[in-house]
């Protein structure tokens, strides 16, 4: 099996603080991977390195074996990486359909077709002509997801997709992610353990900028070190 | 192919434009009605107001005087004053307005050479007679304009010898950075060299410069016998102030082609201004019966609001208006060409500034020139040079031979 995305000794330093410290991991085709860890573990920084928003201070990132460390976010997106940020990032002035239509494609008609399909797939086809700025929080999350999946990317990276969701919404989101995983490889950056429990296959645990452990969900949740990390105890 | 398309475009544009031609002519015919319109364009505000306000006062006074004497050709004179606020673009706007909307018989105005060169082509184009009443760098050769102020062959030619005789051969020039300063500094250079001296350096300053500290240090380093200034406008007054503050007045004297043209001598304290020497074709202080009579009438009319007239700019505006009025009287018409021809017939009049004669070939004037020294907010006349012809312009310009010329000649001096 070829790795879709790999990092090698990725490091991100802000002045004296090392937020990400030598992280190496590999995401395979079709995989559903969760990156977890308490606040400040370096997950979000790692996410921003993957998406090109930060340029890592050391280490490299590969996409299907090709070095993409220096690429800008738009270039990474063009490779077939769909990215959803933590705070919904949307075009508030446009309608849902207009926004999703902006995904890159071969022709105008194709864009529209894909956009409609993406909206329907996420169950918000009815909102197509509503202005995004006027939608409820949960609906906005879904519109953003529609934008991410519309170009049919090979890999989707989600940063805390359940932030601000009710329990019911969270459950639905878990179903949705599992469903999306049928077609796309997915990386979810999350700190909500319940949610991870609901979807996870392989889990990578971050702590103080490093990978603490990487294993199946069941093993990880059983590990005392993970519990200590979440409860704030120092790791020996 | 391209030609036919071009023609089509041309036709379209002409159609759009020509629809206007007919009404324009009809409007022209409506001019016969009463008052004669005279437009004045002088800066009543902005950095040049130090010159503009006395000029406006004198033009007002001249028009009032003429109206009191029964107007011109039996018609009253209506004076329209525009204030371009020391902004060149407003000059062009007001000149266009004077020519196309007011249909002025004559436009008096423009202070800086920059403003003159901005409105001269407009008034040429719309065939409106133009009087420029300021001392300037010379060389304008254009049948539509009359320049009644003095030029370098008249003033610089007297100032530089005075400097070299009393202070020394070598000078340092500081000048305003536009055509007046650029060309005038060439004339100064020419006369300094002819007098056997050297110009150590020429520094130009944009009109908004107020900090002359570095320049003053440079001048000291060059050790000239004198500084000759062609600085212009309110901001540049700082130069004289900073010069005095640096304690240099006693070591290096200043002469100027512009100082006194406005109210510089009034603005500066005697400690700062006294001793600066200038040359102009008029100073309020000249001691002649005509001048005394004029000032009496002027002050009687304006009361305590009468401005200090300083050097020639305001007086030349008064004279310029009267020269034009004389031309109208002789032509018995306000028609532009008729008035120009009458003015070219050799008009000479006695004025508060002495006898002034219009030179038909150059449209410039022969005037008396005075060298004076700033003393206690006014001027003390030191030397008088009667009846100086505008030799500089005359050497290059002959409108009798080339009536269609409309350009400004520049002196050719290598700096």
């Amino acid at each position, binding site marked *: 099996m070829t790795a879709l995305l790999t990092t090698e000794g990725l490091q991100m330093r802000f002045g004296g603080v090392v937020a990400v410290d030598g992280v190496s991991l590999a995401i395979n085709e079709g995989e559903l991977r969760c990156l977890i860890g308490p606040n400040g573990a370096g997950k979000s920084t790692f996410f921003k390195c993957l998406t090109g928003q930060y340029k890592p201070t050391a280490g490299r990132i590969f996409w299907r074996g090709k070095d993409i460390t220096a690429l800008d976010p738009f270039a990474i997106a063009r490779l077939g990486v769909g990215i959803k940020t933590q705070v919904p990032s949307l075009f508030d*002035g446009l309608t849902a359909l207009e926004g999703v239509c*902006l995904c890159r494609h071969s022709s105008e008609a194709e864009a529209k077709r894909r956009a409609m399909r993406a909206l329907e797939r996420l169950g918000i086809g009815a909102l197509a002509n509503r202005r995004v700025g006027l939608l409820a929080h949960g609906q906005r999350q879904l519109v953003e997801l529609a934008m991410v999946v519309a170009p049919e990317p090979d890999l989707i990276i989600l940063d805390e997709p359940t932030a601000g969701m009710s329990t019911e919404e969270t459950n639905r989101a878990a179903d949705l992610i599992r469903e999306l995983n049928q077609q796309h490889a997915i990386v979810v950056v999350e700190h909500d353990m319940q949610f991870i429990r609901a979807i996870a296959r392989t889990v990578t645990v971050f702590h103080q900028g490093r990978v603490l452990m990487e294993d199946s969900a069941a093993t990880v949740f059983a590990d005392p070190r993970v519990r200590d990390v979440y409860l704030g105890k120092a790791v020996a | 192919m391209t030609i036919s398309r071009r023609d089509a475009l041309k036709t379209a544009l002409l159609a759009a434009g020509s629809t206007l031609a007919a009404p324009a002519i009809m409007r022209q015919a409506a001019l016969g009605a009463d008052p004669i319109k005279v437009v004045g364009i002088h800066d009543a505000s902005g950095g040049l107001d130090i010159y503009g306000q006395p000029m406006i006062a004198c033009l007002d006074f001249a028009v009032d005087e003429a109206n009191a004497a029964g107007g011109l050709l039996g018609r009253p004179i209506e004076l329209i004053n525009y204030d371009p606020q020391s902004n060149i673009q407003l000059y062009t706007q007001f000149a266009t307005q004077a020519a196309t909307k007011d249909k002025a018989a004559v436009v008096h105005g423009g202070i800086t050479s920059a403003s003159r060169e901005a409105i001269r082509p407009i008034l040429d184009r719309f065939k409106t007679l133009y009087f420029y009443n300021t001392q300037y760098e010379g060389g304008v050769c254009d049948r539509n304009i009359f320049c009644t102020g003095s030029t370098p062959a008249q003033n610089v030619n007297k100032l530089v010898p005075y400097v070299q005789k009393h202070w020394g051969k070598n000078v340092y020039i500081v000048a305003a950075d536009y055509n007046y300063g650029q060309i005038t500094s060439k004339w100064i250079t020419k006369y300094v060299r002819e007098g056997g001296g050297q110009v150590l350096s020429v520094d130009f300053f944009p009109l908004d410069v107020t900090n002359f500290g570095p320049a003053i240090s440079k001048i000291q380093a060059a050790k000239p016998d004198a500084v000759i200034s062609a600085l212009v406008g309110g901001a540049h007054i700082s130069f004289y102030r900073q010069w005095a503050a640096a304690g240099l007045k006693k070591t290096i004297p200043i002469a100027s082609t512009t100082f006194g043209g406005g109210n510089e001598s009034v603005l500066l304290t005697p400690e700062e201004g006294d001793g600066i020497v200038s040359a102009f074709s008029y100073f309020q202080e000249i001691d002649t019966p005509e001048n005394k009579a004029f000032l009496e009438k002027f002050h009687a009319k304006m009361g305590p609001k009468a401005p200090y007239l300083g050097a020639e700019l305001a007086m030349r505006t008064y004279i310029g208006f009267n020269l034009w009025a004389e031309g109208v009287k002789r032509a018995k018409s306000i028609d532009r060409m008729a008035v120009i021809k009458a003015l070219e017939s050799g008009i000479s009049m006695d004025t508060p500034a002495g006898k002034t004669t219009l030179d038909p070939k150059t449209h410039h004037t022969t005037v008396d020139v005075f060298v004076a020294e700033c003393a206690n907010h006014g001027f003390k006349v030191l030397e008088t040079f009667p009846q100086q012809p505008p030799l500089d312009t005359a050497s290059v310009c002959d409108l009798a031979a080339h009536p269609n010329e409309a350009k400004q000649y520049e002196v050719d001096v290598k700096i």
Partner: protein
Amino acid sequence: MTVNVRTALQIVAALIVAGLAAWLLPQYLELFTLINATVFVSMGLLALSLGLIWGFGGILCFGQTAFFGIGGYTYAVAAINFGDTTWAVPLALLVPTAVAAALGYLMFFGRISDVYMGVITLTTTLILFKFANSTAGDQWTIGTAPLGGFNGIPGTPPLNFPLDPSNQLAPEQVFVVAVLALGICYAVAKLILRTRFGRVAVAIKENELRAELLGYDVRLHKLGLFAIGGFMAGLAGILFANCVFVSPTMFSLSYAGQVIIWVLVGGIGTLVGPVIGCMLIQALTTYAGTLSAIDPNLLLGVLFMLAVVVVPKGLLPTATTILLRLMRRGEP
């Protein structure tokens, strides 16, 4: 679909208004008013250029006058040297566009933030202003055209018919050209905004990060829009050179400020708004200039503050909102 129809209608309406103005006004207006109107129209085009890049690209350029002035100067210098304006015009469009592209490259590819972008554009204009002001000496002559420093180039040749330098346009014809240019630029701007490029540019203004994450090169789009703005401002400069003349004032701080006021008053995020705002304020300041009781700067300044504090969205959008609300209230 309806959006496309609306755009088409707006374009047609604008072209009809421009056509009517070009046809009718020269017949009824006095020459002087017409020349002034030409100045207004050229300024309107300048306002349109800023309205486009600020309102639809989110690029707050404090120095849009830089391209305006460069267009004017290039036109004047080229026209004097060539003795024919046929090729001076394309050159005077190319140069400001290229300068805008170069400046845009520096700013957008350097990922400079909003405020600093304002500083850099303003500074660029100031540099040009200072520079143009200091070119009075003989050494500042390009070919046969002296730059003239503070004086500017008073003898800027008026436009002539293509390839026919002896046949110069009369002021009335310059007016016609100016009005048509404004109408066409408006239409072009509208069309650009309907293209994919335009929609992405608007999306970038809405949310730069999202547009980037969708795979769009934000910098390139901003650069493109900025260059188009430079092109239009350059065209405005050519027209201005034809009805006034070229001088350093074109770069001045007060012009740079006025353009922003026009757009702000007219409404950010519309294209007609800035043009209307420009005409209104120009008319108002011209009128105020004839009053001696009140200083035009005072009037302008107070308007500016009111625009920011009271109607931050601009006159046109605010008026539309109020109208809509009134109409709705009228309904039962």
